[in-house]
């Protein structure tokens, strides 16, 4: 925690708070999809629930950003009244670890679109394993479970990876990130070209 600036911690928390609200707001959407399509409904939009770890890691670029931001977002979601209660913090930690794993694999050096999408897929896989043991997917048939996993991975790559990058890049364009890793990188690229 010592190599983090206070500024970075607060920005990460604020992102987590904002996306904690977004997470909570998308729960009814997921529930609606579930009631229309069955348990697989969640997986189409599951990437939403990984997005903050990708955004925070992409902006701050420090070990732990993906994990911590997702954990805080889950905590905020609990504080605002998610029915799952404190257990959702553990869910958040696991999803965050999944994304963190992808960044750790590149030794926190590369933040290209592919790495971000991979982080989304990592979060999808981790969260699926956790959900498999917790939510009783076991009662479902095997092909159905496999298609759930595949859809969740795609959703993680596209919603969390691609949209997460788009949001962060648009934020960087406004100039508010000039003292963060992403803003610095963009400035460097501009001065070169």
């Amino acid at each position, binding site marked *: *925690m010592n190599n*983090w*600036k*206070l*500024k970075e*911690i*607060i*920005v*990460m*928390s*604020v*992102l*987590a*708070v*904002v996306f904690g*609200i977004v997470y909570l707001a998308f729960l009814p959407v997921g*529930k609606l999809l*579930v*009631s229309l399509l*069955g*348990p697989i409904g969640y997986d189409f939009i599951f990437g939403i629930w990984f997005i903050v770890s990708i955004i925070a890691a992409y902006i701050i670029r420090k070990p732990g950003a993906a994990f*911590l931001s997702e954990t*805080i977002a889950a*905590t*905020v979601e*609990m*504080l605002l*009244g*998610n*029915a*799952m*209660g*404190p*257990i959702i*913090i*553990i869910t958040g930690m696991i999803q965050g670890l999944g994304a963190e794993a992808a960044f750790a694999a590149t030794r926190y050096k590369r933040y290209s679109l592919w790495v971000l999408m991979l982080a989304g897929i990592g979060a999808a896989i981790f969260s699926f394993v956790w959900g498999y*043991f*917790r*939510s*009783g997917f*076991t*009662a*479902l*048939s*095997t092909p*159905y479970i496999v298609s759930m996993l595949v859809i969740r991975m795609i959703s993680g790559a596209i919603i969390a990876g691609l949209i997460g990058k788009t*949001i962060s890049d*648009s*934020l960087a364009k*406004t100039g*508010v*990130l000039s*003292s963060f890793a992403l803003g610095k990188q963009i400035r460097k690229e501009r001065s070169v070209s």
Partner: protein
Amino acid sequence: MRSFLNQLNPSLKAITVVLLVCLLTFVFDPFTPLIYCMFTVMVTIICGKVAWKWYTLYFSVIFLLSFGMLWTTIAFADQPTNPGVTMHILFWDLPKEDVTVAAALTLRMLAFASLSFMFIFTTNMVDFILSVMQQFKLPPKLAYGVLAGYRFLPLIKEELIQIRSAHRIRGIHRANGIKGSIQQYKRFAIPLLAGAIRKAERTAIAMESKGFNGDRDRTFYRQFTLKWKDWGFLGMMLIVFLITVLFSMKLGYFSWYKGQF
């Protein structure tokens, strides 16, 4: 006056809830979670001071959702091992195994919800984070950072209203169509996030200029401790869980989660 549940140490209360949720995960029959859910609601009613209107509302929402879950689990169930054994419900003949599994999952969800509502409705969230910092060594830098971020919650709402008014003044109206609404999201999201990040930076500077350095060696104005009654609560919840399990074993309902994969 603060009631028993509201006075408990927030972080140990959270651990109690998480522990019990984990234990309940291993139970795979409808009876045990039902009894335990009723017990938890009773504890909340007797020992807690909660906003009853919201408590009832939250519970009714969960109740409706659990019905949805009940039928989807039956509808999308795996092929039962004994398809011959059926159960007659209203107009349908359903495999008994599927119904039992679905009921177990649904009641388990209700039991989880009752436990987490017991926590949410009796805990002040600032106290929770302060207590995690004091009892479980969360770095102060992170704890106060999170608290600052949490404080932004009402500010973000305010800012959203401002952005909306600003859009209206400039003659931007509600979008129609999917493409339009995506653009509208972007029009709201980016200024909102940019404003929040600016505010966060200012907050960090303010905290540091007042001498906050995130040192672990610091004093606290509001102190949280672990007392015997916190451990007693944990013990009581565990013992009642054990009794519930034994009781349902005696009645022959109980079944472990033994690889129903």
